[in-house]
């Protein structure tokens, strides 16, 4: 039994405090996830809000098998998917002014974002979950509904491409 189990049980019984704790716990993760998909920071907040709204709309049907975060990622991923249909170049002024990124340097940060943008969609999804959100490979397979070997292959391929894009010798 994980920490979310009791929290979810309390939420399903309509405990306001539990709902607040849950949102506060996962809000940054989901916002970061949406932010990596969506360039517009204002829209990122809207998507994050909608992710939680959708989650709570289906809470009475929700069955806790593993991590609630995985289900949130699935919802957020679906919401972000529409955005993929409208590819556009990332204007420099829109690079994360907010949310604030604490990376090594602005240049490197921009490089990583640009590299991420150039990855094929299926590799980008895995990259965001694995490298940025630090989700385990097995859980990524569950979130995306693909097999574990395919996740491993995509991570490997993403590493290769990112190595090329970032001009690094060894990505490990």
């Amino acid at each position, binding site marked *: 039994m994980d920490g979310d189990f009791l929290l979810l049980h309390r*939420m399903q019984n*309509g405990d*306001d405090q539990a*709902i*607040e704790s849950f*949102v*506060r716990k996962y*809000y*940054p993760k989901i*916002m*970061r996830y949406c*932010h990596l998909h969506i360039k517009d920071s204002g829209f990122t*907040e809207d998507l*994050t*809000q909608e992710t*939680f*709204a*959708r*989650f*709570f*709309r*289906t*809470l*009475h*049907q929700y069955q806790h098998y593993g991590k609630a975060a995985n289900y949130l990622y699935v919802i957020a991923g679906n919401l972000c998917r529409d955005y993929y249909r409208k590819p556009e170049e990332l204007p420099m002024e829109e690079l*994360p002014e*907010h*949310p*604030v*990124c*604490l*990376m*090594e340097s602005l240049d*490197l*940060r921009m490089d*990583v974002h640009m590299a991420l943008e150039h990855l094929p969609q299926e590799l980008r999804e895995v990259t965001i979950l694995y*490298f*940025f959100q630090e989700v385990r490979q097995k859980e990524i397979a569950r979130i995306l509904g693909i097999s574990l070997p395919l996740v491993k292959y995509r991570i490997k391929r993403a590493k290769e491409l990112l190595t090329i894009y970032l001009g690094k010798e060894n*990505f*490990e």
Partner: protein
Amino acid sequence: MKALFRFDVICDESKIQKTIAVSKEAFLSEESEQTVSHIEFLYQQCKFIKKRWWLMQGLLLAFVCFLINNSETDFTVRRILGLTGPLFVILIYPEIWKNRSYDALEIECTTFYTLRSIYAARLTLFAWVDMALLSAFYTVATLLSRVTLWEMLTQFMLPFNVTCCICFRTLYSKRINSQALSLLLCVLWAGAWSVLVLNDAVFRAISVPAWVSLLAASVFFMGYTLYRGQRKWQTIMEVKPLWI
């Protein structure tokens, strides 16, 4: 290298507060619509089930009671019970398969309740009614002093369970979308079972632990099939969309 991907977001407190408020509102508005209790939901679903198949099952068991009461040997009782098990399941087949046969899954998927809830309710109803019918049957058969619990388990429940396994496995199958094929498999199984129980030498060669193992395996597999079906109900939808 991990530091390259590590970045935090600064979340606006007012946005978090708004998200909390929206979440509570979404939860409460959805909860207010969930006014139907489990029993009410079962009652609703019961109205969609044709009761004539249950009546047929009841009549079959009554007829079997009559037959075993008038049968002279244990061999005949065994044969009757062995054939009744699969037939008892086959009678409810059209009702269990109705949703797939009529391509109703896509329609049901757009309804208020999930396909999973609908199937769970229907299977629960089938299980309750069958349990009641079989309990009544066993009570009467015992009163007639013709069937022991052991015979009931090995001669009736085992072929019954295996037929249920075939039914549910094919019902929740991605590849098989034919009630006729599923029925054919059940009939083949009934035939194979008859050959087995009618051969006294083979029948006697099967020891008690073997019967227990077979029964346990059939119960386990039926449970697994139902569990798998409930978990993977979405994949059934992908098999044969109406628009293709």
